[in-house]
């Protein structure tokens, strides 16, 4: 075996894994705090999944409607999350977001403007007021480019196309990370006493998803193997509007901005079915006639919001119901129509949607309806962290953005993701600084551990016989679609978990072409280990939660149950190497936050609470 001295070693105070919005924002924070910061990313800088975020970032700036404030944003987030959110995180998020957004302007971001020259804000599902700072329908690209062009001048080192394999530990604390360079296939050891995960979700475990190849739950797998806990993994968000036709684009996102700008959903009978799908909790704040919905779109502040802008879980289930009831669109979705608005308006407000449909589906959205259906989009759950410092139960390991749990509870509001990245990215950076300030001694990299992790991934290359990893990925996606889909049932979940156990054996026996240089097959083998951990954790949490809440729907347990509000599902790897799920009892809500979350809008608009 190679001596540790012969493996390339790079030292940092903090290693950030992932260069999306959360990772770059964390790295900017730690660089500015004087820490030697490294960032590793699976892809090239600026290509992270954040670029796919379209609609905007939620922050109660109050630029378009002065009645908005952090308390209303906090209340919307809790209600959207069906009160399973970590209270402090939802409050911190709503409080910090406006300044994190303004700061982006100082770094070069160019948001769309209001008539008085301020940052413009748009309506989105579940948000009481126009709240999403945006740039047409390419807000994520603006965020990533802003952080990238600002970040490279802050002193951080960005290591591109460098793939994390496993965390290194010393006496229960983080001491670094083993990774490999895609370009050469060579290993690299990062010696770092603090690691911030900003690794995103695990959507690639599903066939129909808006996620890219990178979304393989790397953070979930590595964190679990290092002893950290995963929480709320059953809450996987199916975005209601993904493309459904042609087959090769199935799952690609259609921004909620289409509905925010007035898009309506209809079934094959031409019925605007969302009016028949308004949950009681939202009935007082939702329009009950087409006429009222139109008035709202025309800017009448007394009118209530159209039902198309209900939360994503509600809209996704409603579309499923139409399809299952035989009232779906031609290719098994629903129709989403924005053609009633002026053609130039559509092209200006939704330029990339216009191009996406024109070029990939030969549909002109200014004249024809789109066909849309649910697509796996986002993990509300993830690595369990402290709500203030973002540290996991593993000293020195932090997590921010989609890979962490807590802010969104059982369902995320659109627009709360981009603001999550910048708020908790910065918080994780500060958390790491605080940890390092109080850390005595410097954790060491253990040679034997490095070798063990290396063997774990080189086996795939050295094997004489073994299975094609792409076939195993296909089978994993089939299991998740069939057994852990948008609507779930106990028996199916149990069968799914059993099938995953069988699949695990196959994952251990996949084989890659024996070249380590830029080999996507080998990379798929490595990703599979993390994907299957994420998939199993999701299935275990889904089986444990015997109710329907937010994004988690059980056919055999309809509706929310009181017991469901008392706990969060938590998964960890036990000493035998198996995933174990338990119910972690929730702490009582802080009194002030509880009061705000249950106030009426009138009480909050004037900030009388």
């Amino acid at each position: 075996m190679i001596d540790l001295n012969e493996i390339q070693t790079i030292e940092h105070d903090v290693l950030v894994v992932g260069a999306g919005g959360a990772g770059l924002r964390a790295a900017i924070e730690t660089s500015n705090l004087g820490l030697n910061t490294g960032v590793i990313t699976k892809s090239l800088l600026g290509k992270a999944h954040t670029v796919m975020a379209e609609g905007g970032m939620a922050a109660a700036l109050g630029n378009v409607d002065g009645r908005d404030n952090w308390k209303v944003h906090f209340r919307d987030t809790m209600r959207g999350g069906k009160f399973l959110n970590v209270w402090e995180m939802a409050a911190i998020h709503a409080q910090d977001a406006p300044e994190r957004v303004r700061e982006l302007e100082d770094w070069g971001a160019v948001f769309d403007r209001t008539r008085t020259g301020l940052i413009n804000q748009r309506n989105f599902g579940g948000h009481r007021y126009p709240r999403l700072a945006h740039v047409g329908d390419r807000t994520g690209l603006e965020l990533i480019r802003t952080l990238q062009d600002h970040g490279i001048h802050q002193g951080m080192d960005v290591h591109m196309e460098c793939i994390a394999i496993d965390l290194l530990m010393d006496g229960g604390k983080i001491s670094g990370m083993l990774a490999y360079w895609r370009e050469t296939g060579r290993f690299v050891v990062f010696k770092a006493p603090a690691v911030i995960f900003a690794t995103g979700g695990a959507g690639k475990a599903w066939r129909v998803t808006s996620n890219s190849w990178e979304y393989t739950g790397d953070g979930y797998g590595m964190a679990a193997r290092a002893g950290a806990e995963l929480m709320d993994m059953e809450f996987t968000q199916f975005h209601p509007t993904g493309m459904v036709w042609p087959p090769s684009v199935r799952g690609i996102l259609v921004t909620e901005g289409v509905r925010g700008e007035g898009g309506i959903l209809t079934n094959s009978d031409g019925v605007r079915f969302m009016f028949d799908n308004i949950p009681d909790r939202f009935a007082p704040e939702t329009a009950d006639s087409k006429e009222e919905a139109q008035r709202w779109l025309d800017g009448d502040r007394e009118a209530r919001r159209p039902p198309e802008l209900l939360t994503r879980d509600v809209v996704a289930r409603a579309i499923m119901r139409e399809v299952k009831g035989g009232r779906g669109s031609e290719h098994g979705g629903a129709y989403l129509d924005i053609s009633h608005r002026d053609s130039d308006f559509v092209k200006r407000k939704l330029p990339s949607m216009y191009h996406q449909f024109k070029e990939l589906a030969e549909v002109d959205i200014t004249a024809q309806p789109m066909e849309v259906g649910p697509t796996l989009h986002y993990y509300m759950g993830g690595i369990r962290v402290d709500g203030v410092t973002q540290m996991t139960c593993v000293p020195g390991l932090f997590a921010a953005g989609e890979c962490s749990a807590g802010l969104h509870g059982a369902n995320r509001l659109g627009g709360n993701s981009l603001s999550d990245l910048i708020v908790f990215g910065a918080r994780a950076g500060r958390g790491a600084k605080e940890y390092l300030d109080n850390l005595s001694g410097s954790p060491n990299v253990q040679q034997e551990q490095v070798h063990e992790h290396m063997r774990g991934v080189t086996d795939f290359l050295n094997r004489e016989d073994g299975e094609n990893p792409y076939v195993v990925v296909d089978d994993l996606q089939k299991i998740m679609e069939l057994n852990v889909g948008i609507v779930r049932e106990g028996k199916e979940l149990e069968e799914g978990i059993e099938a995953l156990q069988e699949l695990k054996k196959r994952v251990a026996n996949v084989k890659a072409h024996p070249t380590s240089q830029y080999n996507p097959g080998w990379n798929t083998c490595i990703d599979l280990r993390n994907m299957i951990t994420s998939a199993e954790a999701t299935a275990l949490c889904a089986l444990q939660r015997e109710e329907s809440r937010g994004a988690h729907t059980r056919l055999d347990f309809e509706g929310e149950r009181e017991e469901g509000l008392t706990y969060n599902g938590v998964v960890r790897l036990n000493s035998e190497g198996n995933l174990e799920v338990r119910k972690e009892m929730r702490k009582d809500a802080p009194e002030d936050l509880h009061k705000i979350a249950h106030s009426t809008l009138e009480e909050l608009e004037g900030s009388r609470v």
Partner: protein
Amino acid sequence: MSERTFRVWRGNQDGGEFVDYSVEVQPGMVVLDCIHEIQKEHASDLSCRWNCKAGKCGSCSMEINGKPGLSCMTRMNTFEEGETVTLQPMKAFPVIKDLACDVSWNYKQNERIRPFAPRERDPDGEHRMMQEDVDRVQEFRKCIECFLCQDTCHILRDRETEQNFAGPRFMARLASLDMHPLDTDDRIQEVKDESGSGLCNITRCCTEACPEHIGITDNAIIPLKERVVDRFYDPLMWLMRKLRPGKKETVKN
């Protein structure tokens, strides 16, 4: 559904060759789907960059039948029936392996551009800019950094002039900074000397290659060239500056 032959360049910096693969093409498929089929069925080690598969990240740039393009946005029904589809890495950059090439030169160019330098916020803590004043800047900021414009630029393809010109992508970025209502830096000297604006001879190949339809030549490069001319080569402007030395170069119009 139909069979289609792909000729894919396989190799690395030491050399390579074209290898033929046959793919079953389903309705609606794009070139990137076919590459994934080849990986799944024939060559699991075929290297190719991609991420979003929706034309938003600019990772999957390559040369398709000799033309620079995004493989995720090139539909299979744009080819003639029976036409062989040839895939090669971008030619302007050194190859790593197969369809992936080393684009790090672009990242180094970007680092050379001085960072955004905003004016102070208004007393109430806000920045104010009018939409009509940021429309043009937003056009440049649509750039997905696919580097197809860099690939197609003959100044950059020519190894002798490559080091003196930042390339269309970064001319557009400089334009976005120069026209940014909040930026206080004077970048015209940098545009002329560091980025070599004079080298572009306006063949508009970059604009044609841009999948985001950004008017790189007309809206970014030509206005920058004009500002360089005004500053350094216009005797009247030179005289005005001598007569009114109090007016700083950095004041934005």
